[in-house]
């Protein structure tokens, strides 16, 4: 291992000064100190997995967003905005805000009142063990695999940007996460996610500010982008009338129905990685407010992610290319746009903070994966299938072990990806198979009393199988794209949108069909789980400015305004 760490450093994009290194080391010391400090407060399973259910709306909301704000998210979407223009902002606005508000206002009462520990746990209460097992096993497997892919990608970035050895980056970051999550459980993950959220903004905010100063303001930026790329790069909706009119090769129906209505609702309302943070809220109002607070901040993330990509089109003296071309020519790839902008404006100290922001993003995403894996493994696999009589102390012990295994499996995946790069595409595709159908199952389970356990299980299975089938169909016969994505011009992202949409439709149709011919549960067994069988505490006695629905409306108005502003 030591010899592997000592491999020579080759090229690097930036050189860190001693003050930059002090900032990075201080960050690692602080997150570890938080883990050790919180170790004594993770004694029961409720403490370890649910953070004692005592988080305020602000803490739960920022943590909810931070778990999603991984560094690959930051760098990947900055790269996408350089490549596709402002269209990438759809993944932050229509691809997130409506779903987050829906989670807060409509779905959170059922998750919270049912007192479930996880999303698979809700499926068990609503549909029974088979649905829970299907969901838990697929989630646990995919979560650690995705974590490994992110780990490898981050280590690769650190190699390109700083010249750091890949083994060093993988082991230092993963062991740090294993220690602070293993010691303090979800509470430690959430504390660090809030800290990481602040650092991400503190380290990234200067790039768009200084970039706009250099470009001469938004109007001048648009003019320069029109010259260097195309005027269409600064329009959100205007080019979506046809697949061939925009660089993403996507139609507005794919964005609205595939991304906005299915993929984003699937991710933000049923992916336990993010939902777990909200389940830790101290009361129902905090649980409803947390996703709304997260949505409010999410709306402004394009300022530190999408805008730097657009600014790069205008101000960078070099033209960025795809990975293959960059390797062949020795140039820079799209994925390097954020580090390039960081190096452009940030001197000693600021550079260290910017790099810390990237690391913080990576570690918050990884901690989210690992803590969610640990909870689902312990409650929904170990407690449900392996040791049904486990004591509370055994749950905590198993949770700590699962954290360590989760990290080790992620590290193993990272090394596997290093050897066989194509695995990355397969695992990412695999993850997408489960999200859209799961949303269909959960939302029908919450909103329609008639949904039966058999309907839920077979709908989920059929939706997932149809998604895998469509993916395999296009792999074997690329011309099938005209049926799956409605056009031969569709690109990968468009294919994903439509595949998600069809698999959701299959899930819903099968769930409804099977439910209509099977016996539903009596109302008495649905209390706390389904709309119409659950008494939801009213907000009416609160002042209007304390009501979640009021703040959801404020965020919704801002969301619509932003879409019109950049139409």
């Amino acid at each position, binding site marked *: 291992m030591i010899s592997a760490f000592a491999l020579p450093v080759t090229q690097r994009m930036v050189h860190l000064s001693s003050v930059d290194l002090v900032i990075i080391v201080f960050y690692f010391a*602080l997150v570890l100190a938080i883990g050790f400090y919180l170790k004594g407060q993770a004694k029961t399973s409720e403490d370890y997995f649910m953070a004692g259910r005592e988080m305020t709306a602000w*803490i739960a909301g920022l943590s909810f967003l931070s778990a999603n704000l991984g560094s690959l998210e930051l760098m990947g979407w900055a790269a996408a905005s350089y490549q596709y223009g402002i269209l990438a902002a759809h993944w932050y606005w229509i691809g997130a805000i409506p779903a987050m508000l829906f989670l807060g206002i409509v779905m959170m009462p059922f998750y919270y009142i049912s007192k479930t520990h996880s999303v698979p746990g809700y499926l068990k209460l609503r549909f029974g063990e088979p649905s829970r097992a299907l969901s838990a096993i697929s989630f646990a497997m995919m979560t650690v695999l995705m974590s490994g892919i992110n780990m490898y990608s981050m280590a690769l970035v650190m190699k390109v940007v700083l010249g750091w050895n890949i083994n060093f980056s993988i082991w230092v970051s993963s062991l740090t996460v294993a220690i602070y999550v293993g010691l303090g459980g979800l509470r430690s993950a959430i*504390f660090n996610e809030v800290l990481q959220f602040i650092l991400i903004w*503190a380290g990234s905010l200067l790039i768009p500010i*200084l970039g706009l100063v250099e470009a001469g303001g938004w109007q001048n930026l648009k003019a320069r982008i029109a010259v260097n790329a195309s005027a269409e790069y600064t329009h959100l909706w205007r080019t979506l009338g046809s697949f061939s009119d925009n660089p993403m090769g996507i139609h507005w129906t794919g964005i609205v129905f595939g991304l906005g209505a299915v993929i984003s609702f699937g991710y933000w309302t049923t992916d336990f990685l993010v939902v777990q943070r909200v389940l830790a809220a101290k009361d129902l109002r905090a649980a409803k407010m947390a996703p709304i607070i997260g949505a409010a901040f999410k709306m402004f993330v394009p300022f530190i992610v999408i805008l730097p990509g657009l600014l790069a089109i205008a101000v960078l003296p070099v033209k960025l290319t795809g990975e293959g071309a960059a390797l062949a020519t020795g140039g820079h790839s799209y994925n390097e746009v954020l580090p390039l902008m960081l190096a452009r404006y940030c*001197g000693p*100290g600021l550079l260290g903070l910017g790099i810390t922001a990237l690391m913080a993003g990576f570690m918050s995403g990884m901690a989210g994966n690992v803590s969610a894996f640990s909870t689902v493994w312990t409650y929904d696999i170990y407690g449900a299938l392996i040791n049904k009589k486990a004591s509370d102390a055994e749950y905590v012990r198993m949770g700590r072990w699962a954290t360590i295994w989760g990290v080790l499996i992620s590290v193993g995946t990272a090394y596997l990806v290093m050897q066989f790069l194509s695995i990355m595409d397969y695992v990412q595709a695999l993850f997408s198979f489960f999200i859209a159908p799961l949303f269909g199952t959960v939302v029908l389970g919450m909103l329609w009393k008639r949904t039966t356990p058999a309907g839920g299980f077979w709908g989920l299975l059929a939706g997932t199988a149809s998604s895998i089938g469509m993916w395999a169909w296009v792999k074997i016969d690329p011309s099938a794209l005209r049926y799956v994505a409605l056009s031969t011009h569709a690109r990968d992202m468009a294919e994903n949108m439509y595949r998600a949409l069809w698999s959701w439709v299959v899930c819903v149709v099968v769930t409804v069909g099977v439910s209509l011919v099977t016996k539903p549960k009596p109302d008495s067994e649905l209390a706390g789980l389904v709309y119409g069988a659950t008494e939801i505490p009213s907000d009416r006695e609160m002042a209007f400015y304390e009501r979640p629905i009021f703040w959801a409306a404020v965020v919704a108005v801002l969301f619509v305004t932003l879409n019109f502003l950049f139409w």
Partner: protein
Amino acid sequence: MRSGGISIWFFVGISLLVNGLLIFGAGIYELVHPPEKPVVLFQVHANVWWGGVLFLLGIVYCVYFAPGRNRV
């Protein structure tokens, strides 16, 4: 949220304060000893004022959420 006495915001304050101080210090050093290859817009001295802002925010958070004070 507090956990046994120390608020998460106090940890945030510590982080902002230390990072702000280090960045501000590096900015002042660069003012006195300008680098041979300055970054773009070096003349606006972003590390001086950004470091200062983070430092001041850090002080506010550390004082307001200091252990023992009844803040959440």
